[in-house]
């Protein structure tokens, strides 16, 4: 099986990648940044890509880049806390993002953004990407039970947010 070129990946899976990135970040700018970083890693990693589910591979990279960034931001926030308490507050830009448009999709997206990042990642990988719990556990490097718990608690929080 031939390994696709970088351009083929971007062309074929661009909308998928952007959609996953948007579901995780909740706004166009951060989604664009995330997609660019993912494509950079994809470009570097294509030579070692094992033919399989391209969507699965891409979404794993996307989620990891997203969570890496979340952890980096948290570390920066903790470091900044003693001098500037405002910076120590949890990143709320995504939660506060006012989504243009209307309809149920926007309500659901807004509710997704209120989830803790790890819960959101698990829910997106499960419901948007369609990965199995085992694949999600592998992607997030957590036990299967943690995946199940995050997804279920995430859905519970979604329900509360959508009430």
């Amino acid at each position, binding site marked *: 099986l031939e390994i696709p070129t970088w351009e083929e990946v*971007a062309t074929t899976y661009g909308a998928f990648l952007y959609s996953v990135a948007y579901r995780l970040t909740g706004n166009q700018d951060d989604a664009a940044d995330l*997609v660019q970083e993912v494509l950079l890693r994809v470009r570097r990693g294509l030579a070692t890509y094992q033919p399989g589910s391209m969507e699965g591979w891409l979404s794993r990279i996307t989620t990891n880049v997203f969570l890496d960034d979340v952890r980096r931001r948290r570390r920066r926030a903790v470091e900044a806390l003693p001098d500037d308490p405002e910076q120590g507050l949890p990143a709320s830009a995504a939660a506060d993002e006012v989504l243009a448009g209307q309809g149920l999709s926007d309500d659901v997206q807004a509710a997704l953004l209120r989830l803790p990042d790890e819960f959101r990642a698990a829910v997106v990988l499960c*419901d948007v990407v*369609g990965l199995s719990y085992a694949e999600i556990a592998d992607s997030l490097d957590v036990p299967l039970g943690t995946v*199940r718990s995050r997804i279920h608690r995430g859905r519970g929080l979604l329900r509360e947010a959508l009430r």
Partner: protein
Amino acid sequence: MTWDDRSPNGHLGDFLSALVDGELTDPIRRAADQHLAGCRACRAELDATARMHQLVAGLPMLAVPAPVWAAMMAPSTSGAPGAPLRRPRPMVWAGAAAAVIGLGLLVASPPSHRVTPPMTHFVQVHTVSQSGDPVTQLAPAAVPAFLRR
């Protein structure tokens, strides 16, 4: 393992999501079905859990906005692999735009104006008021004497 190992109240808990997602093994799923048959609370939570799954799974695929698409495709035309791809933030764009505008003001040639003469009107005027050779008609009515032969 059953949910009873983790749930002191005996309810299905997060196994409900696993049930919705088809992640339970057959023996556990059968046991879950038995529990659901006699537990209204778990049935209600199962419905709510399935609804949340459907809502998120039903989110539409998004079209990539043009600027994002341009940024996504940038690496294919950039230099060495691994070149930084980070999209400049709006402030960077604003600065760059201001610099370009400033430079433009310094070196730009005078602006050219596009003129659209009322050609139809001119034709009508000449057709009505002039006859013969239009160049002759444009000659001054009175030629100074010293220029006459």
